[in-house]
């Protein structure tokens, strides 16, 4: 069957089960958009900026666990999507980005809107392709989805020149692909798992350190079983929130720079760290030479390069987190050891003492400025029964949301961890809302971050994506201001944003709903009103501009040297 490249593209998306793509047209991709326009199976969400399209694809992928897809044009279209590609690469998000390219005979001629798309994206994608022949397009798209979603997930870019989209070719879509240089290991080495079981039985002060890998591997059930079986407390990284129920008694919440006191103390004083789908990022380890100094380390990860990259690992297990945990649980059950659980009682008591002594808390006097933590807490109280998806931008508000918004299920937490991309939150929320039209999707943003992609409010309104954006407005790049207070003697170099723009008027200009709270007593009211609206909402909440995010381990500090204020 002969089809044009554009028709092959659409046909491939259908076979991959893609329901929604995010994109923005331009000269060289018009043919593809034209074909998309004439069918109904794949919905196209027109974004206002390609960065928005990329982050929406990420949000879609994080919320669904399926690959997110973006389609953009050549040149500036592609360069605008670089940030989402890097973001997805850092956080292992499966997205497939299709970029247009100038016709093959013009490649390398500095043609209009030409950029070296594969060259630019090579260091920030898991893999990328330049399609030179329309007859290869089906095979390449199949491989792109395969690579993006298997092994350690990540972004894949497919560059399609204009003539490849226009020309007719034979449509072949293979059922499966095999790539000789790419064979991810899913099953963990049995002997290593046995070693892990023995170490777990022996450990008196064990702790599980769970990363984002547990989310994309869908290992939440196995993880819960593991923790309950062994009575091992669970620390989560920013990326892992929701992988283990935050309200479970064994959960210590988030660890790392702004993690809970108990979580960081527990990992520091443990004698066995079981790292599960995590990569020992510097925001988690702090001073790496003094990270868990007394502990043996078991590391389960699908990516061998993550193991022994930053810290010494005693028992490495390369494999898929879900598969390995299943095996581990089976072995643990086969060798019951009630004694070890009994031995760990003092450890659990110690942890509970830490938890009780330094909980994540704040004080909100009724007539003072609104505390940002209070706002998050109130949003949580009003929405916890609605199983919301929560996205955040990057900064203080992100850390407060991670601390105070308790998540009990995976795929509910959309945040930019590794790259720390301001402007991620709102488009990511839209991506999730596009996937789940009936779900409640919240975006907790800062006034600085929100302004980095606020053009996507138009996308939200036009496509009827009723996300609820809560801006914790402190008129600052808050985290920058906090660091300037702590490390630059309070000189606020380029961190004060003034009161521009007026977010309520901005919402109204986009034909969305704008709400504002400036006093503590108004917070509940605006949250309730926002939740009632069936349109996108921006809630501008004036918070205490000088509130700092605590606890905090200064960069390069040691995990047991947390600075606490309360």
């Amino acid at each position, binding site marked *: 069957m002969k089809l044009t490249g554009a028709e092959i593209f659409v046909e491939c998306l259908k076979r991959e089960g893609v329901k929604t793509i995010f994109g923005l047209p331009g000269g060289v991709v018009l043919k593809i958009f034209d074909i998309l326009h004439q069918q109904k199976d794949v919905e196209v969400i027109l974004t206002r900026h390609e960065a928005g399209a990329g982050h929406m694809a990420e949000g879609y992928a994080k919320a669904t666990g399926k690959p997110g897809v973006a389609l953009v044009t050549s040149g500036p279209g592609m360069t605008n999507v670089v940030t989402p590609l890097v973001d997805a690469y850092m956080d292992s998000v499966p997205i497939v980005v299709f970029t247009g390219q100038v016709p093959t005979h013009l490649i390398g001629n500095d043609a209009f809107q030409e950029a070296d798309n594969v060259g630019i994206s090579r260091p920030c994608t898991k893999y990328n392709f330049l399609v030179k022949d329309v007859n290869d397009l089906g095979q390449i798209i199949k491989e792109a989805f395969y690579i993006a979603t298997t092994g350690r997930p990540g972004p894949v870019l497919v560059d399609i020149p204009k003539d490849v989209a226009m020309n007719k070719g034979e449509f072949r879509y293979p059922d499966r692909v095999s790539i000789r240089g790419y064979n991810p290991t899913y099953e963990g080495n049995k002997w290593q798992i046995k070693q892990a079981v023995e170490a777990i039985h022996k450990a008196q002060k064990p702790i599980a350190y769970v990363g984002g890998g547990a989310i994309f591997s869908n290992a939440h059930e196995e993880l819960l079983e593991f923790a309950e079986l062994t009575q091992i407390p669970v620390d989560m990284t920013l990326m892992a929130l929701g992988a283990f129920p935050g309200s479970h008694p064994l959960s210590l919440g988030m660890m790392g720079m702004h993690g809970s006191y108990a979580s960081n103390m527990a990992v520091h004083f443990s004698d066995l760290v079981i790292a599960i789908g995590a990569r020992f990022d510097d925001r988690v380890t702090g001073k790496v030479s003094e990270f868990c100094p007394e502990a043996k380390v078991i590391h389960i990860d699908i990516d061998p390069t993550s193991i022994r*990259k930053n810290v010494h690992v005693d028992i490495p297990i390369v494999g898929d987190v879900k598969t390995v945990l299943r095996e581990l649980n089976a072995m643990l059950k086969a060798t019951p050891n009630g004694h070890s659980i009994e031995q760990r009682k003092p450890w659990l008591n110690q942890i509970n003492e830490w938890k009780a002594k330094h909980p994540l808390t704040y004080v909100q006097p009724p007539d003072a400025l609104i505390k940002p933590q209070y706002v998050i807490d109130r949003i949580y109280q009003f929405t916890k029964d609605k199983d919301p998806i929560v996205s955040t931008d990057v900064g203080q508000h992100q850390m407060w949301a991670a601390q105070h918004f308790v998540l009990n299920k995976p795929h509910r937490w959309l945040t930019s961890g590794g790259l720390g991309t301001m402007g991620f939150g709102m488009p990511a929320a839209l991506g999730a809302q596009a996937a789940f039209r009936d779900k409640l999707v919240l975006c907790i943003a800062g006034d600085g971050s929100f302004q980095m992609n606020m053009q996507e409010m138009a996308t939200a309104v036009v496509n009827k994506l009723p996300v609820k954006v809560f801006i914790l407005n402190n008129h600052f790049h808050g985290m920058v201001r906090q660091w300037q207070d702590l490390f630059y003697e309070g000189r606020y170099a380029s961190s004060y944003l003034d009161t521009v723009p007026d977010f309520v008027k901005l919402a109204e200009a986009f034909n969305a709903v704008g709400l504002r709270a400036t006093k503590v007593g108004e917070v509940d009211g605006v949250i309730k009103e926002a939740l009632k609206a069936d349109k996108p909402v921006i809630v501008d909440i004036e918070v205490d501009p000088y509130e700092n995010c605590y606890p905090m381990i200064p960069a390069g500090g040691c995990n047991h040297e947390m600075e606490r204020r309360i």
Partner: protein
Amino acid sequence: MEHIISVLVENKFGVLSRVANLFSGRGYNIEALSVAPTLDPSMSMMTIVTQGDDRIIEQIVKQLNKVIDVIKVVDLNETEFVQRETALIKIHTRQEDRAEALRIADIFRGKVVDSTPTTYTIEITGDVRKVEACINLLQPLGIKELVRTGRVAIAREPVRQAAAQPKRILKEEK
């Protein structure tokens, strides 16, 4: 410590750049690199000379394995191996130095591959120490231009002596 790593890769455009990107992006150094197709023209063999402690080399090998176009990675330092490099050395020769240049070339089993009244171009092949020794000796004569291929290396085939000897003994007993 210096390591020589053999990397079997897909023979496609962009692969060299993927490997080079990996080294530059992670702050590893490539000291020498040579690439050419293998017997199977769909694959190329890269020989990379790099430096690093055990932890860095472990990461380099893992990171190389992670590149999708990389099919196989062997750290040759883990076995016995043979390495060779070729250099083409163009030396500026005054009349009185011409005999000395040929003598030095001869000592190192070098070949003169081009000659003019004022220059010789000498081809020399050997392990890196031999090539460097030859260059050092020729330097006082005046090296005009020097090109080196970078190293190629291959693992030595293990000799199975243990299996061969008992047979001989059996024969003698008869």
